[in-house]
Each structure stands twice: as structure tokens, then as C-alpha cells.
């Protein structure tokens, strides 16, 4: 008999950010909207931290989409991009006073538990405007982009 459970692709959407730091919460807000869609076979989680906590959450899944904030030179708030781990190679940091970042945590997972790491992992990075002021509301341009991002992620989840 075929083991249906073990052959199913395990999918996870992880919204990363701080929901009371204005646009930093965009990943969380996108995850909450996706949850309302009850997408079959997809788990939706929120992660209000970074670093090694993220590693704990992605192990064991085949396909992971991480939605997070980003700020790039010349980027317009509400724009979003898909990125892969390779795009962050230069972000693997040296010793720091504070913590390790997402790319470093993922690189550590690939080194230590490669067999448990997702075969497909992409980032949906959303350009943000304000991540300094405490607020549970996003700025208008970022808030307006949320439905488009939700639609995009839902579409990406359809592929096996």
C-alpha cells in the first residue's frame, strides 16, 4: 500500500516580522490573510523572531515560502520580489553582538541537517517604508499591496 502521507509534499508559508512595528509586520499580515483561505495541504505559521527559531520551523518541510520585509535602494513601498537563499550569500555574517540572521540560520541548517531542509525555499520580500515606529497598522502603500502578495503566494503554492 502506498503511504499517502509520506509522499505528500509538505508545504509551509512562514510570515516573519513584528506585527506592532508598522511595516515590519507585513509578513505576518500576509500569513494571516492566507490562513483565511484554508488552502489544502498548506501550513501557515507566524514567526515574530529570526535566526535559529526560523531553522526550527522550516525543517521537515519540502516547500517553504518565507514572506518578510525588505528595504532596498530605490525600492518602492509595496513592491515585492522573489528571492532564493543564493541571493543572500553575501549576508552570511561574521560574529555579531546581537544574533544571527535568516540566511546564516538557513546555511547552518543546510550544513547540519541537510536531509531535513526544504528542497524548495523562496523568499517573498516586500519593500517597506516604516519599520521604526511602533504601530499595528502598516503604511498605506504596503497595506494596499497585501492582497496582491496573498494572491501571488497562493498561486506559487499550487505548483508541486
Amino acid at each position, binding site marked *: 500500500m502506498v503511504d499517502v502521507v509520506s509522499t505528500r509534499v509538505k508545504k509551509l508559508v512562514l510570515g516573519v516580522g*513584528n506585527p*506592532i512595528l508598522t511595516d515590519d509586520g507585513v509578513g505576518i499580515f500576509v500569513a494571516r490573510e492566507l490562513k483565511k483561505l484554508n488552502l489544502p495541504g498548506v501550513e501557515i505559521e507566524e514567526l515574530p523572531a529570526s535566526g*535559529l527559531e526560523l531553522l*526550527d520551523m522550516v525543517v521537515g518541510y519540502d516547500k517553504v515560502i518565507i514572506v518578510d520585509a525588505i*528595504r532596498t535602494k530605490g525600492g518602492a513601498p509595496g513592491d515585492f520580489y522573489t528571492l532564493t537563499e543564493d541571493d543572500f550569500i553575501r549576508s552570511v*555574517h561574521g560574529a555579531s553582538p546581537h*544574533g544571527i540572521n535568516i540566511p546564516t540560520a538557513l546555511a547552518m541548517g543546510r550544513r547540519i541537517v541537510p536531509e531535513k531542509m526544504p528542497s524548495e525555499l523562496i523568499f517573498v520580500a516586500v519593500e517597506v517604508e516604516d519599520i*521604526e515606529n511602533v504601530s499595528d497598522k502598516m503604511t498605506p502603500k504596503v497595506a494596499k499591496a497585501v492582497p496582491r502578495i496573498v494572491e501571488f503566494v497562493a498561486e506559487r503554492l499550487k505548483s508541486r
Partner: protein
Amino acid sequence: MAGPIINDTPTKTKERQITIDPITRLEGHGKIEIFLNDQGNVENAYLQVPELRGFERFCIGRHVMELPVLTNRLCGVCPAAHHIASTKTLDAVFSATPTETATKIRELFYMGQYMHSHIAHFYALAAPDFVLGPSAPANKRNVLGVVDAVGVPIGAEVIKHRSYGQKVQEITGGRATHPVFGLPGGVSKQISEEERAKMEEMAMSCVKFGEFTIKLFHDLVLGNKDYMGLVLNKDAYYLETYYMGMVDKAGKSNFYDGDIRVVDQDGKEVEKFRPDEYLDVIAEHVEPWTYMKMPFLKKVGWKGLMPGKGNGIYRVGPLARVNVSNGFTTPLAQKEYEFFKKTIKDLGVTGPLHFTLAFHWARVMELQYAAERMLELASDKKITSDDIRGPFGQPKEGVGICEAPRGTLIHHYASDKDGLCTKINMIVASTNNYAASNASVRQAAKALIKDWMVSPGLLNKVEMAFRCYDPCHSCGTHSLNGGPALEVNIRRKDGSVLKSLKNF
């Protein structure tokens, strides 16, 4: 494996102002500014840190019961500490005494926080310096380099036991990262026997991992003469300050509850206070060059960023807790504490230890204590009792304090009769340490940068002077291109940048 690279070759710089940006290029403007004089020696150095804007305004008018969940959003690194401090503050606000079971569950939860926080700091942030060397190239001097050097199996143990800390938090606190279980007078979630047994098993493994970590620290640091030369470098890493930390009735270190003890540079107790007395002891100084306030001992006064009895700056965190206490209540941590005391006695030290890099030693001792205390609590079958909520009264004003992994954490709220927040004040651990960590940076910079000679290794050694405090200054943002980074700008005396070094 090759030995650690302790020193590199400095090159002559023409710059007169050196800037180390330790936080990130996104999170704000946390940085170190080092000013050189005409001779190319350090004239002064400043650690500047950012603050999240508007948190107090965000909280005023909300129900105080929301604060344990809101305040823990301040930090993606130690939300559990904020949740515990906040929950204890609600105990005070509502005149509630938590039940014995609830107290045990909270403390068990909190030991989970210490496990993963101290493991992350020691292995991911401190070990790159110990294993690869403070002057190893920045692209190698990271946790991946540590895994390459010590081997994947040890890396896997690190990940596993850090994860055990998270799991204990998840079982007891409802969520692994941002907990939701704290209520005035208790907790919202009972522990099942199955959960207790699972945590007991994880705690047993954590105790063994604590022993392993202590041995590793002995081998890597105490057993390495070059490192001990750095640790015992009085010119660079030595501050005679006051120390503050929580102790139980027997004077043993306690992370969850107790009195706050302050000792002077000779180890003499100068203050012992309950949480609601904190404003009698602590005042805050404001400097024009930074947003963050600098707490100091009110009775001693503020004299600037210098050590000594005449100045009220104090330190909190692992080394401070070891310095204010008589050790630990658990056997293996106490054994290491006694070895520590004997070792420093052999160095001629009878009172507190003032060597800044000894924070790392204290941290591994505390990791062992947290694991042992976790095992004690998880082995207690009474912890599964349903007596998890005590009575509470009408809301008023209250203060709650716990020891965050980084040091003493104070929350203070006032409520109106409907439970709406009318005032909120918090002094977080890294703020308590802010004056001292500034003094440490200044001292290290002055000792290590001479005659215009600068190198990445030297600048990392300056950063080591405050990294060992495990600072957590800008809590909250996690943008993809954020995260820890180091930027060093070297400037002329007039402030203009001549050269820039980055590790990102």
C-alpha cells in the same frame, strides 16, 4: 584544525574617527564612534544605540492584561523575559499572589528561555572568537566556521538543545517564541503528565549538554594561554563597577524571583531592594549624543563613563549575577562556581571579578544552572496540578522584575480602575548595562588602537568588549536584509569619513 587566529597585522590609518556599526544597516543607528587624536591614539569612544519609537504611546490606554503579549514584541531575542517581567508586574498591579504550581510552571518556562538564549550567545556569537580567533577573517568568523571547526555532530547537539529550550517554552507558554500564558496570579495552561515527562527527558539531556559546554569552555579558553592573556588584559577588559542582580533569601542567584542586590567594587552589599523600591535606587542620566538613557545608582550619583566607587554606574547580566550572589542552588553549577572562585582567588581576586570577558564564563555556569533547575522543576510531579490560578484584586500600580539572560529587567505599569494603562516604564537589561558597556568600549579602544595602527582583528577585539554583554539594543525588526552586521568607518578629527570596512 589550525589554531585560532588571536592577532592580525594592523596597518597605519590616516583616519581620525573610527565607526563600528554593530547592529544593522536597517534597524537603526547603533554604532561605535572612535575618535583619534593628533598622535593616532584614541581620544574618546561612544556606543550609540537606537530605540523603537512610540512604544509607550502605543501602550497607554490599552488594557494592562494585553501588556504581557505586547511588551514581548519589543524583542525577537528575549520575548520570554519580557513576558515574565510583565506577568509579574500584573501580579503586583492586581495584588495577586501566584499559586505554587503557577510559579513552578512560569519558572520552568523561563529556564527554557535561558537554555536557548545562552546557547545561542555562546555558540553562535562568542564561540567564533574562541574557536577561530578574534582576528580570523570576518567571512570565516561566524557560526558556520565554528561548525566546520568543531564538526557537524557537535553543531547538531547545539541545535538540538537550543531547540529543547524552545520546546519547553512552547509546552509551558503556549508558543515557542512569543508566549501567551501569563496571567495575574497564575498561568492559563496546565501541564499534562505526558508533557511533564517529555520536558523531564529533554532537561536531562540539557544537563549533560551543560556539562559538555563547561568542559568546552575550559578547553577553549581557560586552557589557551593566548586567550587568557586577552581575558586578563587589565588595560582593555577590566572595569571596577558596581554590580546588580537578583538573589534568593540565601543569597543564591535566582532568575525568576527574589530581592535585587547591589554590591560595590569590593563585594560589599550597598543596596538590597524589592521591585517596587527600584526608583529609590536607580536614576537615569541623559547624554546628548544618544537616545538611550543611562541608569546609575541614585545614592552614589553620576560622574560620567568611568569606573570606581565614586561613580554610580553598575553592571547587570551573567557576571554581575555571579558577583552579587553566593553561587547557585544546583550542584553542577555550584561546582563550577566554586572552581571559578578558586581560580580567581589564585589570581589574587577575593571580591567581585571585574574582567569583562569573564561574562562568558558566568554565562556557561548559568547555562548549567538553567538546565539543572529545568530538570528539578520538570521532575516535580506536582507541577501537573490544576491549581494554576490564584485570586486577584482591583488594578492599581505595580512593578515586576526578573533577570533576563542579559540582566535585570524592570517593568512598571499604572492602571486606572477599569484596567486601562495610564503609565508604563521599562528599564531593560541592555539599558542597565549601557553606561558600563560604553565604558568598556572606550577602555578597549584606548588600549588596543595606538599610533594610527588599526586592523579588522583589533576592531573585533573592541567589539568583543561589549559583545560579551550580549547586548540587545534594537529589538524588534527582522527585515531580510537586516540582521547583525558590522560597519567600521574611520574618520578624521573633523568627522569626515576616510575609509570604510564592512562585514556585509
